């Protein structure tokens, strides 16, 4: 059974490989994204030493790492699920001998691995050459980061799956999905580190799962959070991962109920 799930990773990976225009332009555009944010932040820093607890150098690394992390955890699972629900093919998924949500998760992982190896890898090298990105040398930091990256992926995918499954209950989910995308990009800290938000907003952020996707792991990796703080970040990620299982489970159960008892 487990090997079947592994195969979903492999197939998605192969699918991604098939589209090479996407691939080439993807690397180019991710690099450009990092470049643009790098220069924007340079201009913002101007003569200032630190902003929101980041030095200019840390910010550069933060931007590069955050975008690269985004390449890994970003996926369109919400859209895929919503499409499956709308065109009715989700009913077929119910009769297959596997768990649909896990399969989606695995497909997302296949896509993520593809981007990790073929986007993030080359992209990171290019970014390191072009911009003063300082990556840690401590292998412990790398281990922690890779693990946190996996957690970012899981939490982001959970949010996506949750949004996608909403299609069972609302007629047009398009607006919801778009809003989710904006919220994740904005509040996860890819565009602006959360510590730069006005106090009240970053206060609210502490109680939402988004910061666990980018802001916290990238803070660890850039060295802004150290020591016991790292364990705290891990704790927060694990906590959100666990918390988010519940609504997905409940929604999935009631979706099944709806499909089987009420006939869709």
């Amino acid at each position, binding site marked *: 059974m487990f090997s079947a799930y592994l195969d979903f990773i492999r197939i998605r990976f192969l699918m991604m490989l098939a589209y090479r225009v996407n691939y080439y332009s993807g690397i180019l555009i991710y690099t450009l994204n990092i470049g643009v944010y790098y220069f924007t932040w340079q*201009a913002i820093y101007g003569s200032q030493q630190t902003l929101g607890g980041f030095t200019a150098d840390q910010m550069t690394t933060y931007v590069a790492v955050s975008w690269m992390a985004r390449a890994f955890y970003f996926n369109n699972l919400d859209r895929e699920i919503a499409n499956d629900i709308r065109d009715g093919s989700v009913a077929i998924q119910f009769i297959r001998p596997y768990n649909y949500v896990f399969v989606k998760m695995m497909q997302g992982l296949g896509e993520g691995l593809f981007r990790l190896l073929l986007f993030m890898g080359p992209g990171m090298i290019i970014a390191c050459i072009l911009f003063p990105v300082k990556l840690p040398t401590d292998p412990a930091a790398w281990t922690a980061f890779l693990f946190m990256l996996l957690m970012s992926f899981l939490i982001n995918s959970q949010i996506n799956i949750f949004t996608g499954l909403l299609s069972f209950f609302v007629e*047009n989910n398009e*607006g919801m999905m778009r809003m989710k*995308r904006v919220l994740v990009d904005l509040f996860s800290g890819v565009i602006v580190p959360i510590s730069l938000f006005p106090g009240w907003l970053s206060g609210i952020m502490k109680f939402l799962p988004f910061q666990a996707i980018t802001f916290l792991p990238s803070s660890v990796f850039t060295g802004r959070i150290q020591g016991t703080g790292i364990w705290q970040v891990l704790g927060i990620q694990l906590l959100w991962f666990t918390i988010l299982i519940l609504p997905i489970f409940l929604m999935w159960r009631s979706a099944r109920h709806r499909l089987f008892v009420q006939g869709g």
Partner: protein
Amino acid sequence: MVFYTSLIWEYMKNYIKTKLTYRADFWVEVLSDLLFQATNLIFILVIFQHTDSLGGWSEAEVVFVYGYFMIPYGIFMSFINLWGFSERYIVKGEMDRVLTRPAHSLFQVILENIDPPSIIGSFVGAVILGICWVQLDIPFGIVELLVLIVMVIGSVMIYTGVYTALTAISFFSDAPTGILPLMFNIQGYGRYPITIYNRLIQVVLTWIAPFAFVGVYPASYFLDQEITKSFALLTPVMGIVFLTGGILFWNYGVRKYRGAGS
């Protein structure tokens, strides 16, 4: 020309009739559109909490550019909405149907996908622009209005040209998603003072993916920023060049599609 104008109206009528059947979605869509736009505004607002100027531009000036950008962008989004092209026309084969109809294929595809609610973004942009206009104490008369209109038209043409060309890549590539979503990230960068970027990115945003002409260049015509002012007047010229290029590339793509088939 008369023929094509009457077609626009006809397609528009059908759009409205379609939309009236799903009224609730309308506002959700408008709202999420605006929220999508707001990301960058929030970025600007957050940044200026921590600094007074961005490469010599004040907050009001940067927001002014942002407001300007929203006007052509809203027009573009409501008329040229090519997001699902590859999926719908190439993969599902609707391009064949388009090619059996007696009107230019690009025109048909565009009209089949118009999305008028996006125009609301233009109004919001105009309001933002107006507020900054007053704040910055820029004179306003008939000349400024005419220039603004010409600039907006130029910007829309650039957008249309670039996205037409990008969409036409679907004729060559087998990628179902296309590279449009990736491009979507870049387009925002034309809204920041271009001088803060290094040479290479400036060149890209000026000549290759000329999104600076959909934001900072034309807007700077009204602002007191001498560096980019000369570029402002290039906006309509670039518009013509890129629109022509985009259409030519589209035609080339269609030729290729008809040669290679599916």
